């Protein structure tokens, strides 16, 4: 039995419902395939639909046409709660501004992700603590907003990979960091994905990024 690709996109097109019929496509991607554990960079200037593509893959937006499969599952064939649960269990997301839960500790931020996973609740705490420790967080009970930017990034990465997702989507994860910290953050993200066996689809317009990936694609000519 062959393992399905982590991500398979066919004839994906998207434009906003409010757009005119002849308006250009925000996302126009004939096909894209990412095997399990594979890492890929999507480049393109701002406004080329990189973030929109990630939200489409996560099932947070509806495509105008086309199919997106994650681990063989047509994401948009799932409705409501089933899609939310699938996203929680199969896809991890990392944001430019981390989007950590305010008022929650570093540990609780990771536990919040595990709440929606298929992993036994009795294992959540130990698993989250081990993951945070591996990513260099030595004060897991400290409020997330009290951590340094670098540590917040680590918590965000831990949260994204905690549920052992098949796919991690990273949306401009280094955009707000200086080059040195950006490199360290990418090292962390890529290593964490390898360790957790997750495929990584990363968007960035940072010119230093392509060198880190064996596969890159550009959305510059998408529409």
């Amino acid at each position: 039995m062959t393992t399905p690709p982590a991500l398979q996109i066919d004839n994906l097109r998207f434009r906003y419902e409010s757009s005119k019929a002849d308006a250009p496509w925000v996302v126009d991607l004939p096909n894209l395939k990412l095997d399990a554990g594979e890492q890929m960079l999507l480049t393109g200037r701002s406004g080329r639909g990189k973030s929109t593509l990630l939200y489409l893959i996560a099932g947070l937006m509806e495509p105008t046409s086309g199919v997106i499969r994650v681990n063989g599952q047509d994401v948009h064939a799932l409705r409501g709660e089933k899609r939310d649960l699938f996203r929680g269990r199969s896809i991890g997301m990392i944001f430019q501004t981390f989007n950590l839960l305010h008022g929650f500790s570093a540990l609780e931020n990771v536990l919040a992700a595990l709440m929606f996973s298929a992993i036994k609740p009795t294992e959540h705490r130990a698993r989250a603590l081990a993951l945070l420790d591996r990513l260099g967080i030595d004060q897991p009970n400290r409020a997330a907003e009290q951590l340094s930017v670098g540590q917040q990034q680590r918590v965000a990465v831990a949260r994204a990979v905690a549920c052992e997702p098949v796919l991690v989507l990273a949306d401009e994860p280094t955009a707000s960091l200086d080059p040195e910290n950006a490199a360290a953050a990418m090292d962390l993200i890529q290593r964490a994905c390898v360790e957790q066996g997750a495929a990584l689809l990363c968007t960035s317009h940072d010119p230093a990024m392509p060198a880190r990936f064996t596969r890159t694609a550009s959305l510059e000519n998408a529409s």
Partner: protein
Amino acid sequence: MTDFTIILRSMTTRMFSTVTTIITVAVAVALMLVLLSMKESGRQAFERGAGNMHMLVSAEASPLLAVLNSVFYSAPPRQALTWEKYRSIAGSFPWEFAIPIQQGDSYRGFPVMATTRDFFTRFQPHEGTPWQVSQGRFFEDSFEVVVGATAARVTGVTIGSELFLTHGMEQSRQRSWLVGGPPDPNAPAPHVHYEYNYKVVGILEPTGSAHDRALFTDLTSSWIIHAHDRRREANPGVPLATEADLIDADRLITGIYLRVATRPGRQLSAAQQQIYDTLRTDISITVADPHFEVGKLFNIVSNIDQVFIAIAGVVLVSSGIAIMLALYNSMEQRRRQIAVLRVLGASRMRVFGLVLTESAILGLLGALAGVALCFIGVQIVAELMKQRLGVVVSPSLEPVWTFVLVMATILLAALAGAAPAARAYQTAVIKHLKPLG
């Protein structure tokens, strides 16, 4: 990590708003519970005073006034009955007891009731619960006095204490007619019966009735001290009066506690109504059914109660609106959190449920704080009622009412949370995940 942890974090990050909302709900619930508690315990307190008597005969202007003065010591009765009238009534019907009472004197502001020993052996201030002494014994001879629990506690008298009674109520002489008004400089000085000293022989157990505020002595000694006043007015040098000096005009009483003979184990008699109707044909007396009068009084009061309870209900609804506003306003700050939870796998319905549960928890905490607050509130109100009205109430929270009110508060809070929860449900995930600024 559970949904409860998420709710708890949400509440603690907005601590000020959470606490003020809980206080708002608590005050509303406490107000409602105090009113319900006082209503029930007030009724019980009034009913307790009338005890096992079936009727009260006096010469007061109305049955209600008779009950207020002769059972609740509201004021000394103004009209008297002769001993001949007492004997006539006592001998006319098959009474289980016919106990004469006389009021008019006081000790340090506490009313004194002169009566017979039957008052302690036959009359029960709370049906089924006879009198008990906590110290000493009931009076047996003239010039012996038994003190109610509250009167003993406040005045500090003990067994063996000797005291002088004051003619009339001292406070009413010292103060103007306006309750709580300033002392009246023209009021006559209180007349103290210094010629006769009484000896305290017993302290009563609390009964939870107005009787706890009274002192009890025998009729004969009361007649003697007033006979002495009568004789001294005619001749200031007259020696101390004794029982032998009593004339018919001295043997006055202010009321009669009556109970019709009943079959063993029964509280009422079939003849009661007929006797009541017959007595009422005598226009020289006022016949009152104390339980009926208390009920009538309470019906008047309960109309006011209903207004208060309605106001408390409005306050409760207002607290629900406060919950709604607090949560609704917090939604703006929480949209990013909700968006993140959605990305992590929380469904719209789960987010809706989180906000609704948070609202219900605010209601629950407010209700519980309200119950605690009520415990304090009823003590204050009970003390005020005792001091201002002389009504001793033992307020207690009716478990069923408390449970119903707590549940209603939670339901109301959950309803109030529906609008903010709907707002959370509709949160646009993409919009709120974008970098700020």
